């Protein structure tokens, strides 16, 4: 049995080249947006903007500028987090979403029927429908490459090793050393998703961040959608019970009124 594998993304060395996006698209044969015609976002140098069904990797540009000489660029290559407790896998009604032997989360496109429950369940906004297949799609952590001993296309292409692939245990050790190194240099650095006792049992794609998670478009405490199930079901049951009682009380009142009226008694 292979050990859990994943990504450690060190955002401090990302240069925003988007080689990972291109490598991902090329390996996975993902279609171009808008028929391949260039599309400008209009308010950023980042023109692909977000993860979706045809962008399984996305390099986020965060432009923090207070003035022409006072600012910084934060860059983060974002991807599916391959959560240890995955919301998408939890809600998928077809069984299309599976956990692999590498502890990664994969959508089987031939099983998915495009109901889109996983899109709403993912706390990170990772999944979307691929308009070509009509099914929900996202990063597979290059399951096909892993099966034959290759590393994923994105980390292979990354020129600065911002995206590092390996066993989760080893990656965590490496990440903690990097955080210590940056803190010694006076940089405010934190790991996001590296704690196996943290949110969602840890993320198999975790990050080193130098600002708050929200700045990178990441929820501070991601949770499973099922957290709401018991409470929501209880309140619905209570509402149904109240309406049922009101219906029966109304019928009883009608019967009582009828007994005193011209139509006389009789059942109900």
């Amino acid at each position, binding site marked *: 049995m292979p050990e859990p594998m994943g990504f450690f993304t060190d955002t401090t060395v990302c240069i925003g080249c988007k080689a990972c996006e291109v490598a991902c698209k090329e390996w996975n044969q993902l279609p171009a947006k808008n028929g391949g015609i260039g599309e400008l976002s209009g308010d950023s140098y980042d023109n692909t903007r977000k993860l979706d069904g045809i962008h399984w990797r996305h390099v986020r540009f965060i432009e923090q500028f207070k003035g022409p000489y006072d600012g910084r660029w934060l860059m983060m290559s974002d991807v599916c987090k391959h959560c240890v407790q995955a919301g998408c896998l939890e809600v998928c*009604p077809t*069984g299309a979403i599976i956990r692999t032997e590498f502890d990664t989360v994969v959508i089987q496109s031939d099983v998915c029927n495009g109901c889109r429950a996983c899109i*709403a*369940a993912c706390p*990170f906004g990772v999944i979307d429908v691929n308009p070509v297949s009509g099914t929900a799609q996202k990063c597979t952590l290059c399951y096909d490459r892993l099966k034959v001993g290759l590393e994923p296309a994105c980390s292979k292409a990354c020129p600065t090793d911002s995206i590092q692939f390996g066993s989760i245990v080893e990656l965590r050790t490496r990440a903690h050393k990097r955080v210590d190194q940056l803190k010694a240099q006076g940089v405010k650095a934190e790991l996001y998703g590296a704690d196996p006792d943290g949110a969602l049992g840890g993320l198999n794609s975790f990050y080193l961040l130098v600002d708050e998670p929200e700045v990178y478009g990441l929820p501070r405490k991601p949770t499973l959608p099922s957290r709401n199930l018991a409470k*929501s079901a209880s309140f619905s049951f209570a509402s149904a019970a109240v309406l049922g009682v009101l219906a029966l009380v109304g*019928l009883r009142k009608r019967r009582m009124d009828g007994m005193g009226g011209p139509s006389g008694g009789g059942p109900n």
Partner: protein
Amino acid sequence: MSDTFFSGAPHWTWFIIPYFFVGGLAGGAYFLAAVLDWFGRPEDRAVVRTGYDIAAVGAILSGLLLTIDLGRPLRFWHMLFQSENFPALMFKGWSPISFGAWAILLFGLFSVLSALGARAEEGRLQIPALRAVGGVVKGGVAKLVAGVGGLLGLFVAGYTGILLSVTNRPIWADSPWLGALFVASGVSTGAAALILRSPGRGATERSLGWLSSFDTKALVVELLVLAAFIWSLGPINRVWVSFWGLLLLVGVVGFGILAPLRMHAKPAQAAKLVLLGGFLLRLATILASEGIDRYRVTAGL
């Protein structure tokens, strides 16, 4: 900011909104028909038969809307059976969309059986096969079907709200009250549909009077649950400072609940407004969340 603002919109829109409305209405109408079937008078049979008809048509329409909305409609059966391991069943008790697919299927079966039974009772079935099926659904069998179907009807009316809550989307996952709200709305719109449709099947004034009186109570329950829903959202309520908030306030609360409550003398007009309010409730709650996009939130747009 709630963590739900970083999720992606599932694009549940122009087939799902009518499905949520029709499914709720059909479930509510069947539930009320079943209550009258079990505890009503013989004079209520017209309402009972109308309720079963509305439920059967609504359940079939619901199934069609759900199927059309899929990215791959021909794979709708993957929700019921394991596609790679047929005929093993596909069922997740912790996933509302999974148990909801089964609930819709079973509700459709029970509502069609009840509708056939009611039509056989009236002698309105011409096709021998349907007449044979309808002939079986009478007496104790009809009561049993109505009892189970009534519970399924309430389930179908409410699970759609639970489905929305069991996500990570803004508004939907920020409150546990949507299921309860949709149950109340489903039953009130079901009663409204019966008030409008059953006079054509010969419903008596007493039956209609009970329906109208019940709908008033259901609307009060709906208003209270809606207040609890809004209260539970807390700071998330700023999302209602939008067109959808206006629609919720004016269309749902104003025209859909308060106006019908003041129109006792005109039950048919009140019922039409209740139906409008029920539809607008689904429209506002779904589209208010669908419009929130993760990357725009992060970019501060």
